[in-house]
Structures are given as structure tokens and as C-alpha cells.
């Protein structure tokens, strides 16, 4: 939609030396009104979430539903098998021996919730995604080691290549780079 930026420009990224600088910078970028922002850090930082206003509660609800599904599935599967499809008298216990169905129901609940937690997290994060334009940024390999990056997407309504670049440079980064898609077949 931002045709004037050209199809290859993804955004601007600034590299910082430590966690405090990047959090301060993030706060300023947020107060400047940018919303399509991101940060890259070698470990999770709540401060950055607060600074950039990152909040996504969906995963918790997904997991809850996954667990609930597992629970209902587990119990009804056992009841169906033991009482309807192949009723079998074991030691004179009732067909639906609920106390003895609890362990499997429980395991199914946990399995449902855990699978949802893992695959839901991946799906929401869009992983696996082996290539991303930020990987082409010089020095970005340090993002997984000891450097911190702040990123503003070109899709942001306030994004202006020059003005945004100037803003980022004023925040005291090591370097500001343009994020572009380097693939030929883009």
C-alpha cells in the first residue's frame, strides 16, 4: 500500500549495545507514534514488551481450548470404547468406571494443552520461517548473542524513510540499516 517506498523496502533497523539503550529507544519510538515496530534481543525482556506495547493474550485461550478438547476427547473416547463399542465387564466395575478413567483423561488434557502451546506459539509467530529480510542486515547475527535491535516496519503509517531514519539515528545506535528483501524472486 505504501507504493512510493518501493516493493523491496521492509523497514529500518537500529543496532544497540545493551538492553537499557534499546528500551529507552523503544519508548521514544513508541511515543513518536510508531505502531508497526519490533525489537530483536538475545533473551526475552518484559521491559521491551511494555515499551513497545506488545500484548497478545490469544495463546492462553488457545491452550485452554486445547486442554479442554483433550479432556473431553479423553473421557468420551474411553466411555465410548468401554461402554458402547465393546462393553466389557472387568471385575464387576461399572461400564463407565469414572475413577479409573481419570488418569487417561488427565494425560489427554495435558497432551492437548501442550501440543496447542507449542504449535499455537509457532503458528502465531509464523515459524518455521527460515528466511526473513532482517537476516540480511549486517551484524544481525549478534541479535542472538549480545546485541539489541529496534525495527520499524515500512508498513507503519508514520513511516517516512528519511524522517524515520533520522529519528532512529538520534537514539544513539551503533548503526541504522535499511531492511530489504535480497531475494531475486521477490
Amino acid at each position, binding site marked *: 500500500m505504501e507504493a512510493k517506498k518501493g516493493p523491496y523496502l521492509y523497514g529500518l533497523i537500529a543496532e544497540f549495545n545493551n538492553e537499557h539503550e534499546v528500551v529507552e529507544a523503544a519508548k521514544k519510538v513508541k511515543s513518536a507514534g510508531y505502531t508497526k515496530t519490533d525489537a530483536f534481543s538475545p533473551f526475552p525482556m518484559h521491559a521491551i514488551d511494555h515499551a513497545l506495547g506488545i500484548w497478545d493474550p490469544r495463546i492462553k485461550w488457545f491452550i485452554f481450548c486445547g486442554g479442554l478438547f483433550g479432556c473431553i476427547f479423553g473421557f468420551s473416547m474411553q466411555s465410548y470404547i468401554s461402554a458402547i463399542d465393546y462393553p466389557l465387564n472387568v*471385575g464387576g466395575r461399572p461400564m463407565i468406571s469414572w*475413577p*479409573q478413567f*481419570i488418569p487417561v483423561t488427565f494425560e489427554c488434557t495435558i497432551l492437548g494443552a501442550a501440543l496447542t502451546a507449542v504449535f499455537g506459539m509457532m503458528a502465531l509467530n509464523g515459524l518455521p520461517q527460515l528466511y526473513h529480510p532482517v537476516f540480511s542486515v549486517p551484524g544481525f547475527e549478534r541479535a542472538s548473542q549480545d546485541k539489541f535491535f529496534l525495527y520499524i516496519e515500512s508498513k507503519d503509517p508514520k513511516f517516512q524513510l528519511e524522517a524515520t531514519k533520522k529519528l532512529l539515528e538520534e537514539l544513539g545506535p551503533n548503526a541504522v540499516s535499511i531492511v530489504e528483501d535480497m531475494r531475486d524472486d521477490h
Partner: protein
Amino acid sequence: MAGIMKNTDHIETRLDAVRMPALMLGLVGLGACAYSYSLDPKNMLASYLYALMVWVSLTLGCFGISLLHHVVRGKWGLSLLRLVEAGGGHLNLLTMGALFTPILLNMQTLYKWAIPEVLAHDHVLQHKAIYLNVPFFVGRTVFFFLSWAFVAWVLRRSTLRQDETNNDAEYAWRTNIATPTLVYFVLSITSAITDWVMSLDAHWFSTMYGVWFIVGQGLITMAFCTYIICSKRDCSPYKDFVNPDLTKDLGNFMFMFTMLWGYTSLSQYLIIWSGNLPEFISYYVDRAEGYWNVMGAFNIVSQFFIPFILLLAPRTKALPNMLIKVAGWIFFVRLLDLYWNVIPTIRSSGFHWTDIAAVVGIGGVWFFVFGTEVVKARLTPQYDKRLTEVAHH
């Protein structure tokens, strides 16, 4: 001591306001019990034992949590230390021990194994008689209460001393006392609960029972403390540190104990139900008929599922008002659960008005002692500033 008593902690919280009304109610309740005893001793003693179990479990839970706090020294423990010190202090332990007298004087009414004629015709009971006999039973109960009260007194003195002197050596001293006591605590309660409740049906036994009872104590105590802390959150000193972090911790402890309660109850039931051996199932057979069955089902839902679902939500643990309701509910359901555990073995007819009279009677005395004790010290330990420090963080 006087200097410390002139503290401002109680001006707003007024936890001692409960004393006189509680004492009144207590005396009325105990009076009603005494009257009822003259009509039907067995009925009254059943109610009385049940009520004792309720308040003893709260007292011992308080004592146990204070021991645990002295061992692990968690920050969460600081917020409720003075409550559990008062609730599980030496005075309450001694009072509960003293209130055992009517039971100890009427062993034969409640415990079949104490009746010589029954004993003479039951070789299993004869086998157990070395352990289950009246003098030993009485001796154990008295000894347990005295020993618990002694340790509670020693630890309480130490925290009060540290409040005044700020001497850090007290910390180590308490840990050294509390750690072995915690071991003794678990063993003694296992023995005590075997005596008081398990031996009501002298043929039945379950190795899980002591664990189950200890978990129940933890649950009722956490509910009790959470209730007080959350309902007094606008009063000094609680207003300085009751924040979402603390309520989350308190909620999580209730959550944990709720799950442990479910875990121990289910394990015991599942194993006994699956084994289906005559000498094991008598306990559940007593509780499987008529309204006992309904009450058991109600207990499962209300003691496990309702608090579980409520406490699973982070929102519940962030809102003190919500947490108060959950804590109150848990406390109430603990009363029902203990009822379901104690009464059916003695009395198959179900509810009797003395049940309430006894709970109110002993509870009144309990709250009177609690109110008396709790105002004798600051509501938070003064020597450890971690609570308020984090509030400013």
C-alpha cells in the same frame, strides 16, 4: 515488650475486635453442647469431635505454615507470619488440647476399640491394643499438643525478640529448630490423625490419610490467611504490600493446595476403589449411601473443580475482592469435607443441630485466643524488609 505492643498496626485492622463477640458465641455454643450432652452424649460427641477437627486442622495448619516459613524463609511467608503465629501459637494449641478433654473422658462413646467387650471378641483389635488403648491414646494426644505448643512458643519468642533486637542470629536459630520440628510435625500428625479419626473405624486404615490431612490443613490455613490479608488490604500495614504480586502468590498457594487435595483424595479413592478389598472399603462404604454420597460428589465439585477453575485464571489472583470470595468458599468447603470425613463413621443419621453448635463453640474460643494473640505483635516482622521493599520496586 510494651514498646512493641504500642504499634500502629492494629489501629486500622482491628483484628482483635473479634475477641468479645467470638467469646460470647463460643460460650453459647459450648453451653449448647453441654446441654446436648446431657440429652444424647454420642450425638454431641460426634459433633464435638468434628468441630475439634476443623479448628485443630486450622491451628496445626497455621503452626505448620509457620514452620515451613522458618525453613524456607520465602517472602510470601512474611505477609502471613504473624497471622499463623497467632493462629498456630502455643496458646491456641494448648486451648485446642484442653478442649480435647470431653473426648478423652468419653473414649468408649466414640471409639469402639476402647470398649472392653468389643475388644474381647475382636482379635484384630487385640492385635492393635498395644497402640490403640486409652492411656496411650490420651498420652499421645497430650504429649503432641504440649510438644507442638512448646516449639510454637520458642519460635514465637524468637521472632518477637528479633523484632526488638534485630539480631540476625535468630534466623539461623529458628531454622535449626523448625527444620527437625517439621519432620516431627509430619510424623506426629500422621499418628494423631490415625488416633482421632482413622481409629473411629478401627479396622480401616490408609497410609495416605496423614498426608491427606496435612494437605487439608494447608488449604484451610491459606484460605484463612488470604481472607484476612485481602479483606484488610486497605488497612495499614497490609496496604503497604498487598499488591498483585502478593495476591498472586497467595492465590497460587491455594491453587497448589487445592490440586494436592484433589491428588491425595483421588489417589486414596482410586486405589481403594480398584482394590475393592473388604477391610479397605469400609470407609467409603459408610460414605456411599444416600445423602453422604451426594455430599461426597458435592465435595469433589466444590472443593476441587470450582476453586481450580477460578484460581486457574490470572484475573482471580489479581483481584483481592475475587480472592476473598474464593478463600471464603474454600474455608466453607473444608468444613463440609471434614464433616464428610468424621461424621459418617459415628453417626449414620446425618445432620444434627449440635454440629453447628460445636463448630461455633470451639470456633468462638479459637477466635478469642487468636484475637488476643495477634495484637501482641506487629502484623509483619520488622526485621525483614523484603515485603515493603518489593512494593516500592
